[in-house]
């Protein structure tokens, strides 16, 4: 595009030469291609993603509330208030805790399951398929089922009752609800990590493992020094995807706990933004939260990506 647009000023060009006409035709063709191929997608993206992000930045500098006009410019006041807002700071803590759970649990368990399933044949293929099913289920369905399973009189407590354990308030105990929520989301995303790790395991050459075995390396040492380094790309993908999933977690919280029990024990930043913006209508303040969240997500994924890709080796 840009090279086509960089035409010399007409003063320098003498009469219309053949080359000149060709150039004009190429420019028109370049513009036409952009108009048909490039513009529509970019335009929709600009209207429904870029413009809203910029609007959010704008709102975050105002006290905008659709039911309390007038809207005034307040500078960085919203951001300064965030630093001392207990609700927001709690939400930040809850988000970090949920993120740690969602990065660790599906990665560790997913790797374990992938190693179990790393064999050929219909039996292992079928189980791989079963582990992936929750990934394609709607988070609302997953949330409703788990709400029943973990209810005070649900299946999990019924089962524990048979072995004489008193009922546990998985979702009703304020100190447990977040852990249960993390476990539910980890269950749903486990299959994703399994499939990515299985693909990574396919790239480990059998000869390398055999050579290590001949050199006297035991199973643990083979894993530590051969398999694990070669799984670095899979670890990168899983970690970054889980990081982003955890930060935007909303559906499960809305359906299962509504941010409770108690005050804000499971209310993540993503959840509090929508509460503040749509329920309390403090849209200017919510926009400031959203911008902080965007910066945190961007920084965290960039750092994770940089750190993890450094570990990746080429065979």
């Amino acid at each position, binding site marked *: 595009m*840009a*090279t086509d647009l960089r035409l010399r000023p007409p003063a320098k060009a003498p009469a219309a030469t053949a080359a000149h006409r060709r150039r004009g035709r190429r420019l028109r063709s370049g513009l036409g291609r*952009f108009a048909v191929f*490039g513009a529509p*997608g*970019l335009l*929709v*993206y600009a209207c*429904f*993603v*870029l413009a*809203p*992000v910029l609007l*959010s930045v704008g709102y975050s500098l105002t006290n905008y509330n659709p039911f309390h006009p007038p809207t005034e410019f307040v500078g960085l006041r919203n951001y300064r208030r965030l630093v001392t807002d207990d609700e927001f700071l709690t939400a930040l803590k809850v988000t970090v805790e949920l993120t740690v759970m969602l990065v660790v649990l599906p990665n560790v368990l997913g790797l374990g399951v992938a*190693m179990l399933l790393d*064999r050929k044949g219909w039996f292992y293929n079928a*189980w*791989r*398929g*079963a*582990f*992936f099913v*929750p990934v*394609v*289920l*709607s988070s*609302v*369905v*997953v949330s*409703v*089922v*788990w709400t*029943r*399973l973990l209810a005070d009189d649900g299946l999990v407590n019924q089962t524990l009752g048979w072995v004489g354990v008193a009922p546990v308030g998985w979702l009703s105990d304020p100190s447990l609800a977040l852990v249960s929520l993390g476990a539910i989301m980890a269950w749903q995303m*486990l299959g994703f990590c399994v*499939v990515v790790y299985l*693909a*990574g*395991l396919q790239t*480990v050459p059998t000869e390398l493992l055999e050579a290590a075995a001949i050199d006297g390396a035991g*199973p643990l040492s083979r894993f530590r020094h051969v*398999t694990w380094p070669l799984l670095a*790309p899979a670890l*990168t*993908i899983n970690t970054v995807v889980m990081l*982003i999933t955890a930060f*935007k977690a*909303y559906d499960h919280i*809305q*359906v299962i706990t509504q941010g409770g029990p108690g005050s804000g024990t499971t209310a993540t930043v993503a959840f509090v*933004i*929508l509460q503040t*913006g749509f329920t309390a209508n403090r849209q200017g303040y919510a*926009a400031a939260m959203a*911008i902080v969240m*965007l910066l945190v*997500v*961007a920084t965290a*994924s960039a750092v994770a990506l940089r750190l993890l*890709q450094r570990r990746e080796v080429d065979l």
Partner: protein
Amino acid sequence: MRTPDTAHPALRPLVVTFVGALFSVPLYVVVANAFKPGADIAPSPASFPVPPTLDNLTAVVTRSDRLFWVSLTNSLLITSLSVAVLIVLSAMLGHYLARTGSRWGRVATLVLLSGLMIPPQVILLPITQVLNAFHLMATVPGLILFNVGYYVPFGVFVFAGFVRTVPIELEQAAALDGAGWFTTFWRVVFPLLRPATASSVIFLGVWIWNDFLNPLIILGPSSGTTITTGIYRAIGQYQADFGTVFGLMFLSTLPVLALYLALQSQFVKGLTGGAAKG
């Protein structure tokens, strides 16, 4: 680790079966309870549905407010139209950005790909204003347009990556034979991009079908529900009527489950294309 299981060859299948069965309990619960009388669901959630009853499913499809049929129609319409538009736009834009060598093309690619990690919460508040300005708030076309804008970075990411593996000589040959760029793209290039089209259809289809937050906010209560917001509304209204809730969940999961089972190997390929390369 693919050394043979010498010590206990039967151990691995046993462990896999045990872990897999434990993991699948919630899936079993969805299916079993859809065919069980509503009153039995809370006291014995894990029992087999014998004899199975179709009462829950009949109750769902014959509800007087037609919640299931309205939600199903909305979800089918929104998902198929969003995916169709997304495929056309992202294939063209992905091809354009992958082939243009200019600086502006690289800037546009970067801006577009940064959209991959923008959480919907950041844009949902202002999006209501944008849609209001176009008189599209609380309408199905409004949600479709939003879906297209929000997911076009993913489509471009898939298509642009794939276009780079297609030799440019094919396009040059078509151009030499006198085909215009428009014809060249749709007749020569697009058919070669079929694997990218397949993974985009699968992922975008599943995501948009399962989307909860965006339809909840953008469609709102007035213009009907999708499958996900329909279930959400049903649990609000019929808290104690587990039969209806499980019947609705089972029926609404069938389409996406069928798509998954039919295209299972494509799902895995789509995911692992990235994992192998990193």
